[in-house]
């Protein structure tokens, strides 16, 4: 059964391995390039030129890292579409299921071998790609400090593996239900894309309740914020983020030391042009609550998302095994 699965997948698998090799070499070269740039331009840079050096660094590697990330995010959908969906529909369309399901192998074992073998190949491909990109882009990610970013989180470390297995099993089961290749492919693409968008925009932020810590508004914090706004009733700090954490609020309300809201009346004296205004603000002894997912939750989040999608894949596969035994043909 493994032989047959391999024989049917041979050409595709070798093609993908070829492409993966080329991509792998590129990612290794890119990794060394990024490391070189990081070591010469970023490490120990003089404060006055540091910002400029970082900008140059991002300008140079935004494109390649972004493209590789997009490919890794797209890989599960591709696996689902081209390996998952046709796995059963091609047999049904060519009627070869009537040949193979009448050999001395039960449908359950036939499906188990197919699912297992192709899922392992898919895992290996995605795993190698993710490993290489994670290594290659590590310095870039470190300087950027946005490990929780929607496109970064889903394209590094272990999360892509979950998506790959999920998309593959989803494609297979879609094929089993729809029974025709093209509609099954379209359905797979739609569902995988929906799952990825839904998780990154709606679900991931709620995997654990966010933490609120009180941050004192000192000179460094004032410098790190994007800006401030005040009204009659309240004052807000905007765009402040502790590097490595995932901020849950674009703005936070400022409070005086005694806990009363900071207001427009109080802000008047500090409305000065240039650094003087910031210095003035930093001396007011204000504080605010910073709602966020701490940096330490990066790995728990990775494992939760991986387990969730592997779990979904197992449930879908279970349904597939139940369905294929009842499949009228």
């Amino acid at each position, binding site marked *: 059964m493994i032989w047959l699965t391999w024989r049917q997948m041979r050409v595709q698998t070798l093609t993908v391995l070829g492409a993966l090799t080329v991509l792998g070499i590129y990612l290794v070269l890119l990794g060394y390039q990024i490391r070189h740039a990081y070591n010469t331009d970023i490490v120990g840079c003089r404060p006055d030129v540091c910002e400029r050096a970082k900008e140059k660094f991002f300008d140079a590697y935004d494109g390649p890292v972004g493209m590789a990330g997009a490919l890794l995010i797209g890989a599960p959908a591709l696996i689902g579409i081209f390996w998952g969906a046709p796995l059963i529909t091609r047999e049904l369309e*060519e009627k*070869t299921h*009537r040949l*193979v399901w*009448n*050999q001395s192998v*039960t449908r359950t074992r036939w499906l188990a071998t197919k699912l297992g073998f192709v899922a392992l190949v898919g895992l290996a491909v995605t795993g190698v790609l993710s490993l290489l990109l994670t290594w290659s882009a590590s310095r870039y990610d470190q300087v950027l400090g946005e490990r929780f970013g929607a496109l970064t989180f889903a394209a590094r470390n272990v999360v892509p593996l979950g998506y790959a297995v999920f998309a593959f099993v989803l494609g297979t089961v879609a094929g089993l239900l729809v029974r025709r290749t093209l509609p099954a492919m379209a359905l797979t693409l739609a569902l995988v894309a929906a799952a990825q968008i839904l998780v990154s925009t709606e679900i991931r932020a709620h995997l654990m309740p966010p933490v609120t810590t009180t941050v004192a508004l000192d000179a460094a914090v004032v410098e790190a914020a994007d800006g401030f706004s005040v009204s009659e009733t309240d004052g807000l700090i905007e765009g402040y983020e502790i590097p490595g954490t995932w901020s849950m609020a674009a703005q936070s309300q400022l409070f005086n030391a005694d806990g009363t809201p900071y207001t427009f009346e109080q802000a008047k004296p500090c409305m000065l042009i240039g650094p003087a205004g910031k210095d003035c603000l930093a001396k007011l002894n204000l504080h605010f609550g910073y709602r966020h997912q701490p940096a330490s939750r990066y790995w728990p989040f990775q494992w939760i998302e991986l387990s969730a999608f592997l779990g979904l894949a197992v449930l879908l596969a279970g349904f597939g095994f139940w369905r294929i035994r009842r499949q009228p043909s």
Partner: protein
Amino acid sequence: MTLVVETAGLGKRYGRKRALTDCTLRVPAGRVVGLVGPNGAGKSTLLGLACGLIRPTEGSIEVLGDRPAASAAQLARVGFVAQDAPVYSGLSVADHLRLGARLNPGWDQRLAEGRIRQLGLDPAQRAGRLSGGQRAQLALTLAAAKRAELLILDEPVASLDPLARRAFLRDLLEFVAELDVSVVLSSHLLGDLERVCDHLVVLAGSRVQLAGDIDDLLAVHYRLTGAGEDLDDLPAGVEIIQSEQTDGRTSLIVHSAGPLRIPAVDPERIGLEDLVLAYLTRAATASVTGFAAKPVEARR
């Protein structure tokens, strides 16, 4: 008596469409069974149920004493060639033999290679480039080398030209004798099966019309020809299958389990083709008038 196929009240519906209705059959072992009926009669459905590709919606079916496709062991005992003999078009003839060897514990490589050689197939040839006849032969080789106890062939010769048809059936008979297997094969043409079968099942309108060993069936059917009044009063137990009027004379085809004695009428034996046609005609008429005929089964 061992049975290769035993069904009771077997039925299959697709939505509201009945593909097979109330099918009760007992097919003994060691026969070459012909399953005949017009297109859409339910032949493929019955064969699909027998090899386990389809599950019944009602009734039961046992093949070689077990539920079809119930286990790998049961799958190994039944060889199936589906309609149009599907094969993997991208795989070579040799790949197909390897497939058979890997997926069947009882695989007979000597038999498979021998047949491929005998048929003159090139092992390196892709199955997608074989002719219809060669594809059918390859599919039959796969099913045969599995060394199953029962071979089920769904319309194996439908897509073959007359020459390939003859060759295929002759070849089939040869190795049936050699391997000692039971065979069920279907066709919408009786002519294809007449020469190879010793047991017949006639399906029409999703129902079994007639079933039994051919010799037994021929022994209990007669043609009666006479003036109308001679045939008005038939003995009890005689069932009229078909009745035709020509020039004031009546010609009947009847079923009678016992010997038939009617004054002034000489019962004639009839041929298989006339017999099957009589039942198919009755079924066609019944489906128009809504009258469901009772199937006839010959018993020893």
